[in-house]
Each structure stands twice: as structure tokens, then as C-alpha cells.
């Protein structure tokens, strides 16, 4: 066994101070297996050492929250004895190194987080961020990531119903692949990871263990350098077929009462799963490594414990129920092995070939996991951009630039590679504000979306954090759903730099404020730091995944105009804010200024009003106003339906009115504008008649028409042409 040198300690990502703590806990020098276990348990990925202090400040409770952060996924009550279980997780680094497998195993991992709690996965989403389109690697990464997400999700038979795709040069060397899964379980049959019952058998199921991804967890927490492509052999290969069998087998076993606790083997595989289960239960665990099903010969204890082979789960069973579990896993032709038992020693003891190969205390290790209060500096406030200082271009030309460019073009090329209809409940397909999936066998539905506007967060992390949460809430509202809760995926640069840490802290503050104002708690999440290449950080990207409940899916509306001759009503203020807008960046060539402020009271008021209209059947189409502003929103409604519209805007600056990205706004189509306006006046909601649907062209103030066909052509062309 190699001696533990300072180099080996450093290679394991432990600082000298952290290693001192290891020595104190062990009371002796650790062996390499033990060091490996410390290293992964104390990695940023597993310990949240830089972020914990701030994550704790997020609101996590509400009457409908059954389980907040801390378990494999968050759980919310959706009535009738059912719960929605969901989480988002990043697979950024692996996807940059091997896009197909990295993205595929990201989907596999998040699916396991959800079905490990007893939920049948019913929907996947994916939030993707790539470098500049013209960067040499981008196309290859887009192709691989999209194929990988589809390859995995399509095969397991869970519909991929939504997501985001953005391009920005800050992601050139650090793409973001954030995957989200939503599942549904019965509230009286939810499974947790807390082990209990001294002597209870610890059981390994799923695929065999190979030498995959050893040190993936520490790699995911290390900053990239140019030579990181050398780290390739740690890439894991996903096997969605086995995952599908694992889902079915676990759910089948969960219908019996054989399981005490269950935990998927994610980052740091067997180490973190066994460690966390025992730690939560205040127990010890003994594992016989000879009983672990392995794929290769000669695997060392270190390799077995740190392997990140996919499609594996760890369970604690009721004593005497082993045969029931074994029969289920035999039926599904998966490995099943009793590898150990729970003890009352509070220690993790590993044996192999009859000898003890590791012996460490669980609670002290968990308690002593480093937690840092990293220094941070607030971001500089950027000046507001005055609309009068931004040149006006003809609106038609500007609109075509926005909807036909890399940021604003249709993502159809992406989502048509995902099976978004399997399971037979996709009522709202990709392309709208939120996807809508019917809860099987009922008339209820779950709405789902993923949102963040990284350029806003970069310009003002506090407002950007608020905006990300507000936009997710708005997207759920726009289909008619009641927003329930969010999961977040905090993608940032190196937290050891005070400016980056400042982005993190301020974004969390903003998110927390929005969560409170909108009754929208955080129930699960994930942190991905060190997203930097050669000292260049990504735009701060706190991705918000959110779900909402639709009591009756038949009441929901889409973004497409349902008919001609409907009145269009703008809910919310007139457009005015061009700072950080698409228009300013893409038409005027200036990515600058303060982002639009988020008035949370207006968000709440306007959103509740719109949801009420939808539920009352008073609107036939609805779309929130976000990237690109009002005219982009109306154009998207026209393109989704093939029906044109005429809108009228006034004011000193046409471009600010049409393309300003002011928040808390929606466009609704209605047969009865008077009723909508009267209701708005009563509710204290700003609203005005915007125009009407009809014809086959889009017009502003009755002039300068662009045909919907021409809009569609521009909108649908960019992505396929880029990828061809």
C-alpha cells in the first residue's frame, strides 16, 4: 500500500489543514482507502463546504412541503395522497470531457435520485449552456450532449418535456448540463436514506462495479485547466437499459415492506451512499468488499469504494425479507448481493480477503467536514441604460434578428430528439412556457419549467437571483398552474475568489427573497463550483427548476393563439428597460447596463391575476414576457399558432416599448377584453388592450407587416443550419 505523502494528500484535494483534521480524527495515519474516503466525503461536491452557510438561508418550508433539502430529492404534496418528488443536478465537467456519456449519465443519476425515494419518474428537463456558437468545440458539444440526454431518457422511457439552451462565450471551456427529474409517489410510501436497525442487512443491487469514474467527485470539484482532457479515463458509460430495469425492480420491491432505507450510488458511489445512510441513522456499518459484484478482476478496496459505476443502489432491508428482494432483482436480471450489515459501533469497517482494509469513525468525519465562510465582495452596481441613448432599428428587422439568432431561435432541433410523449400524459409539449404532464389516471397535471437569465445575474446577482425564481414562477403561472416549489442548480466559478463568492451570496439572497414573496420554497438543489477555465469563470448561473400543480389540465392554455379575432391584453407595465436586453446586445451590439429590476409584489399580483383568468376560462392563450420583450412574446404566440396579430404601442421610444425586458408581464388572448380589463382594474393590476389576433402577419400599429411564415422560417432555421 502506498505511503501517504503530501503529494498524495494534495492529489486527493485535501488542504494541509484538512489533512491535520484527518489525522486528529483517525488518531493515526490513514491508509490510502481511508484517505480516499475522506477525500470524497470532504470534496466540495459531497460536503458543500463553500456553500452550506448560504444555502441554509433559503426558505425551504411551506404547508405542502413534505421533505425539503437533505434527502435525495425534494417532496411536495400534490393532494389525493400523492407527492411530487424532484431535483436538478449538474453533470458539467463530465459532459465537457465526453459530451454523450457525460450528459447521459447525468440523466441517469438524477433519475436515480428520484426513484430511490419511491417515485416513478414522469418527466425530465434539461438546462444546457454552451460556449459561443463560433467556438471550435461548441457544435460537437451540442451534438453530443443532446444525443446523450436523448439516448438515456428515450431508452428508459421517461419523457423529456422541457429545458433551456443558451450560448455564451463564458461557457467555452465549461459547458453546463443540468438535468432535472420529476417523479410521483404515494405520500404513504416514500423512502428515505436514514438507516435503522442494528444487524439489518445492507444490500447492493443493480450493475456491477468497475473502475469507472474513480475520483469523479473530486474531479467535479476541481477547476479545469487546458490539460484536463488528460483526465479522460475517469469517464463513466451509462447503461439506460439497466436503469430501466432498476426503476421497475425498485418500484416493485417498494410495493412490499422489505425496505428500511435506500440510497442511490451517485458521486463517490459506495462510499457516500453507505456513509450517508449510516451517518443519518447514527449507526455503524460493516461491509465485506468481497461480496460487492465487480466487473473486473483485481479491484482494490480503494477502487471499489470510490468507483462511480452507474446504475447501482444500496438498501437496508428488513431482516428476513432478503429472499423477497432477491426474487424481484432476479426477475429483472440485476445483480443482488448482501454486502454487509448495520452495527452500533458508529464506525465504517471494510473487510476484504478476511482482513480489515479500512476502519473509520462515521460521525466525527461527518461532523468535522470542513465548512467555510469564504470572503466575498458585492458586485459593482452598473449604470442604467437610457432608452434614448440606444439607436432605433426598424422593428421588423430587429425582431427577425432576435428570433432568428442563436439565442432566440427555436429549440425544436433539440427537443425533437427527445421522446417527449412517452408515458402518454404529455398535455403540454415543449415549446410553450411550461411543460404540462398529466398525473396518470387523474385530470390533474404537473407543470414544469427551468429558468435563469445568467446575463442578468452577472450584471446584478441580487436582481438576477430574484429574476430567475420569478421567471420560473411566471412560466408555471402562464399555463395556469399553481407554482409549488423549486429545485436549484447553483453553477458558479471558483468560490475562493471573493468576487465569485459574492455572486453566489447575492444570488442566493435574491432567490430567497423571491421564494418568500412568491410562496415558492426550495426543496432540493445542487451546487457546481469551480466552473472556470484558465481563470475565466462562467456567467453565474443559478438554474431554477420548478413545478406547479394544475387541478384540471383541460383548463390550461398554451402560448399559441387559439383563434383569430381575439383581443390581446398586456398584463403589467409598458416596456421601458433596455439594459441587458437581447435588443441592446444583439441589435445594438452592447451587452451592458443594469438588468431589469424585479418588483416581487407586482409579480405576485399580476401572476395571481393571470392564473385566475386562466382558471376561469377567460383567456384562450397566454405567454409571459421575458427574453426579447413584448414583441418577441407576441411573435412566439403567432408562430405557435400560424395566426397573425396587430399590436399597438405608444410612448417615446418604440424600441423600449417593443423590446424592453421589464418583468412581471404577460400577454393574454381573450374573447372578452372588457371583462379582463375590468377585472384587472378591480385587482389593481396594470393592463391594457394591446391589439387583436388575426390574419397571417404580424403588424405593429397597423403597419409594416411581417408574415408569420417569414417569422417561422427565421425562427426555425438557425439551429438546424448551425448543426448541419
Amino acid at each position, binding site marked *: 500500500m502506498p505511503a501517504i505523502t503530501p503529494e498524495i494528500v494534495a492529489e486527493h484535494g485535501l488542504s494541509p489543514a484538512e489533512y491535520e483534521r484527518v489525522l486528529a480524527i483517525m488518531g493515526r495515519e490513514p491508509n490510502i482507502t481511508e484517505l480516499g474516503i475522506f477525500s470524497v466525503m470532504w470534496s466540495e461536491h459531497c460536503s458543500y463546504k463553500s456553500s452550506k452557510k448560504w444555502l441554509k438561508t433559503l426558505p425551504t418550508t411551506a404547508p405542502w412541503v413534505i421533505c425539503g433539502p437533505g434527502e435525495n430529492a425534494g417532496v411536495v404534496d400534490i393532494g389525493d395522497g400523492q407527492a411530487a418528488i424532484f431535483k436538478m443536478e449538474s453533470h458539467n465537467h463530465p459532459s465537457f*470531457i*465526453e459530451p454523450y456519456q457525460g450528459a447521459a449519465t447525468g440523466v441517469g443519476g438524477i433519475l436515480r435520485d428520484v426513484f430511490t425515494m419511491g417515485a416513478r419518474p414522469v418527466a425530465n428537463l434539461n438546462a444546457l449552456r454552451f460556449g459561443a456558437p463560433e467556438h471550435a468545440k461548441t457544435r460537437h458539444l451540442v451534438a453530443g450532449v443532446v444525443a446523450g440526454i436523448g439516448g438515456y431518457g428515450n431508452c428508459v422511457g421517461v419523457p423529456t418535456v422541457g429545458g433551456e439552451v443558451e450560448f455564451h462565450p463564458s461557457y467555452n471551456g465549461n459547458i453546463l448540463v443540468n438535468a432535472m427529474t420529476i417523479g410521483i409517489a404515494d405520500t404513504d410510501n416514500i423512502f428515505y436514506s436514514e438507516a435503522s436497525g442494528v444487524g439489518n442487512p445492507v444490500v447492493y443491487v443493480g*450493475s456491477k462495479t*468497475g*473502475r*469507472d469514474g474513480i475520483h469523479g467527485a473530486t474531479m467535479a470539484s476541481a477547476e479545469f485547466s487546458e490539460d484536463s482532457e488528460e483526465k479522460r479515463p475517469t*469517464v463513466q458509460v451509462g*447503461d439506460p*437499459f*439497466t436503469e430501466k430495469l432498476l426503476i421497475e425492480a425498485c418500484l416493485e420491491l417498494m410495493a412490499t415492506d422489505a425496505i428500511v432505507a435506500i440510497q442511490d450510488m451517485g458521486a463517490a458511489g459506495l462510499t457516500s451512499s453507505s456513509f450517508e445512510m449510516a451517518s443519518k441513522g447514527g449507526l455503524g456499518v460493516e461491509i465485506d468488499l468481497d461480496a460487492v459484484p465487480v466487473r473486473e478482476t483485481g479491484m482494490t478496496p480503494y477502487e471499489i469504494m470510490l468507483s462511480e459505476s452507474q446504475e447501482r443502489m444500496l438498501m437496508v432491508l428488513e431482516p428476513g425479507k432478503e429472499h423477497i428482494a432477491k426474487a424481484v432483482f432476479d426477475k429483472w436480471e440485476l445483480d443482488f448481493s448482501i454486502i454487509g450489515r448495520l452495527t452500533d459501533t458508529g464506525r465504517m469497517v471494510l473487510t476484504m480477503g478476511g482482513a480489515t482494509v479500512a476502519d473509520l469513525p462515521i460521525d466525527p468525519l461527518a461532523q468535522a467536514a470542513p465548512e467555510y465562510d469564504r470572503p466575498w465582495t458585492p458586485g459593482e452596481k452598473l449604470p442604467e441604460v437610457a432608452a434614448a441613448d440606444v439607436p432605433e432599428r426598424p422593428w421588423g428587422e430587429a425582431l427577425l434578428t432576435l428570433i432568428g439568432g442563436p439565442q432566440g431561435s427555436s429549440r425544436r432541433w433539440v427537443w425533437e430528439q427527445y421522446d417527449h410523449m412517452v408515458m402518454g400524459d404529455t398535455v403540454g409539449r415543449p415549446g410553450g412556457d411550461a411543460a404540462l404532464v398529466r398525473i396518470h389516471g387523474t385530470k390533474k397535471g404537473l407543470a414544469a419549467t427551468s429558468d435563469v437569465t445568467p446575463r442578468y445575474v452577472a450584471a446584478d446577482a441580487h436582481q438576477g437571483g430574484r429574476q430567475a425564481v420569478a421567471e420560473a414562477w411566471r412560466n408555471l403561472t402562464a399555463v395556469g398552474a399553481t407554482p409549488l416549489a423549486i429545485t436549484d442548480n447553483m453553477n458558479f466559478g471558483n468560490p475562493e475568489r471573493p468576487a465569485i463568492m459574492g455572486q453566489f451570496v447575492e444570488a442566493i439572497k435574491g432567490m430567497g427573497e423571491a421564494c418568500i414573496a412568491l410562496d415558492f420554497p426550495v426543496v432540493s438543489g445542487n451546487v457546481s463550483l469551480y466552473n472556470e477555465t484558465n481563470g475565466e469563470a462562467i456567467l453565474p448561473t443559478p438554474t431554477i427548476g420548478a413545478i406547479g400543480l394544475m387541478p384540471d389540465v383541460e383548463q390550461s392554455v398554451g402560448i399559441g393563439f387559439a383563434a383569430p379575432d381575439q383581443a390581446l391584453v398586456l398584463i403589467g407595465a409598458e416596456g421601458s428597460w433596455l439594459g441587458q436586453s437581447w435588443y441592446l446586445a444583439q441589435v445594438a451590439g452592447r451587452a451592458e447596463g443594469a438588468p431589469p429590476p424585479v418588483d416581487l409584489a407586482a409579480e405576485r399580483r399580476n401572476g395571481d391575476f393571470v392564473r385566475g383568468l386562466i382558471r376561469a376560462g377567460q383567456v384562450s392563450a397566454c405567454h409571459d414576457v421575458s427574453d426579447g420583450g413584448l414583441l418577441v412574446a407576441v411573435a412566439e404566440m403567432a408562430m405557435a399558432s400560424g395566426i397573425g396579430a396587430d399590436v399597438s404601442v405608444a410612448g417615446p421610444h418604440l424600441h423600449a416599448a417593443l423590446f424592453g425586458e421589464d418583468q412581471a408581464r404577460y400577454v393574454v388572448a381573450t374573447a372578452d377584453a372588457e371583462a379582463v380589463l375590468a377585472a384587472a382594474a378591480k385587482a389593481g393590476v396594470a393592463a391594457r388592450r394591446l391589439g387583436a389576433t388575426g390574419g397571417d402577419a404580424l403588424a405593429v400599429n397597423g403597419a409594416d407587416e411581417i408574415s408569420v411564415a417569414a417569422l417561422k422560417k427565421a425562427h426555425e432555421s438557425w439551429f438546424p443550419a448551425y448543426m448541419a
Partner: protein
Amino acid sequence: MKAKVHVTLKQGVLDPQGKAVQHALAALGFTGVGDVRQGKFIELDIAEADPAKAKAQVEEMCRKLLANTVIENYAIDLEG
């Protein structure tokens, strides 16, 4: 000239396809089938007539496109 390229998974990399084939062969009643690994076999017609140059060219194709060198190895045979 004809180039024949074998692209195979690196040692230690999981091969779900091979695993499934092995399983299916057993289910079909074939006994004694151990490890199964599935790779790709690519045949290319190339204009380059000089063997050394041809080899170098195909090597580059493998590195850039035909093989995923993160998880795959490749081997090249030239003919004719």
C-alpha cells in the same frame, strides 16, 4: 487504397451492448460464452496511394472523428 479501421472500447470501460449480447446468447442456449465486447468496423476508400501518408491520414481521421479516444481505441489496416 482501402483502409479498415477497428474501433474498440478501452479496457475497463463498460460495454452495455456487449453485456446484453452475452446475456442474450446465454438465453438462446449457447453455453460457455464468456466476455463479449462490441466495437465498430469501418471501411474507407481513400485516394492517397502512398501507404505512409495514407496511414497518417487515417490516423488523423480516427483521432478527430472515427474513434472517441476518451473511451475507445482504434487500429488501422491498409490494403491494396
